[in-house]
């Protein structure tokens, strides 16, 4: 479970989140909100990439402030732009990167990488330079590179924003079918439509929180057509 207690966050004088109290227990949680509403900051608080300036965030009882490294092992993070997330030159090397840091042996890493390449249909790209992959393949690799390390939770920050329709659907299906608990920050309302819970952020506060249908309706009502 991820607990957010009395969380507020400032960048200098600029306050981006205030009075956020949430317990995330559902398998599929969506987060929506306008640009600048604080949702990306919220996402970064969940795995300790950011520490709140007020309140606390806990993951399975681990405080992100004191146990950040352990929290990041439990909570994987997928960025909007896979180009910043893929740090190694080839597909297999990038998948192996996260495993190397966990002290696994060479053979174990090789076996796990092969398994994940097959699982995500990337086998034919094993030694392919990452920069030559398509946008969809890059996002798939970024997700696979997070999942290969076996996190319990995965936070996605706008995973489909840069993708075409076909890849949006592909990644959306993958996100929905993951075994892990997921939190997805997105503007893609179709992606979140079947989620267990959707939280709406507005100017740094939780403006709506509930089943996907209700929250999305509330969000749409907050933004009438121009």
């Amino acid at each position, binding site marked *: 479970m991820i607990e957010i207690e009395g969380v507020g*966050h*400032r*960048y*200098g*004088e*600029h306050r*981006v989140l205030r009075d956020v109290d949430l317990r995330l227990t559902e398998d599929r949680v969506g987060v929506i909100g306008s640009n*600048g509403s*604080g949702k*990306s*900051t919220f996402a*970064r608080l969940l*795995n*300790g*990439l*950011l*520490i*709140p*300036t007020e309140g606390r965030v806990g993951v399975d009882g681990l405080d*992100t*402030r004191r146990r*950040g*490294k352990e929290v*990041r*092992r439990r909570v*994987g*993070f997928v*960025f*909007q*732009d896979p*180009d*910043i*997330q*893929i*740090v*190694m*030159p*080839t597909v*297999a*090397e990038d998948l*192996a*990167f*996260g495993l190397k*840091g*966990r002290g696994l042996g060479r053979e174990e890493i090789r076996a796990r990488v092969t398994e994940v390449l097959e699982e995500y249909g990337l086998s034919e790209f094993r*030694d392919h*330079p*990452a*920069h*030559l992959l398509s946008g969809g393949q890059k996002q798939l690799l970024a997700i696979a*590179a*997070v999942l290969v*390390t076996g996190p319990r939770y995965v936070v996605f920050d706008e995973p489909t924003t840069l993708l075409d329709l076909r890849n949006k659907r592909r990644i959306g299906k993958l996100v929905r079918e993951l075994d892990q608990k997921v939190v997805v920050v997105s503007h893609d309302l179709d992606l979140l439509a079947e989620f267990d819970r959707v939280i709406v952020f507005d100017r740094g506060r939780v403006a709506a929180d509930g089943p996907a249908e209700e929250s999305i309706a509330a969000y749409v009502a907050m933004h009438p057509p121009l």
Partner: protein
Amino acid sequence: MLSLHREGRSPVHAVPAGVKLLVLFAAGTALFFVRSVAVLGGALAGVALCYALARVPWRVVARQVLTVVPFAVALSAVQWLVTGWEAAVLVGLRMLVLVMLANLVTLTTRTSAMVAAIEAVLRPLAPLGVRPERVGLLVAMTIRFIPVIKEQADQVRAAQRARGVERSTAFLAPLLVKTLRLADGLGEALDARGVDGAAARPGKTPRSGKDRPL
């Protein structure tokens, strides 16, 4: 190394990365002491033989030769003007042999093997504070991000052309901003992937441009 590696099972591919780097280093040093055109010609023939052994397609070899020849010719031309034709031939041949040899190492060695070899070489320096895995990561990331930055440069150029600016020094400013943003995001991604550098701290400035106060 920038996406040049080609899979293969040739004897050249089978040579360990550390040995290849050592040979490259030794050849690079030795070539500067060679004063004979015949010996350099022999070295070039030797490199060509290694390419054949590695079964590198001739089209790839030709592309590489064509890339290096203009530089070798330009350098030789300067040498010819300053010291004479013999020195010019020596310099041109030396450059050709070295670059072709370095490319052969790149073509036949995986980045991961290269990085592992660099880490192994640096390991004895660990007690002095050198962190071999960090140096290895730095090398790998350099290889990974050169094409990304080139792509960003192309985007900036295309955006300027779309606005009617064909050539401008103003090209550098947006590229620098984009590159710094990339570095920012990359730092965050490394944290997220378990390479803990600076630990997260309260109120830490966001590394991505998103949600950054205006």
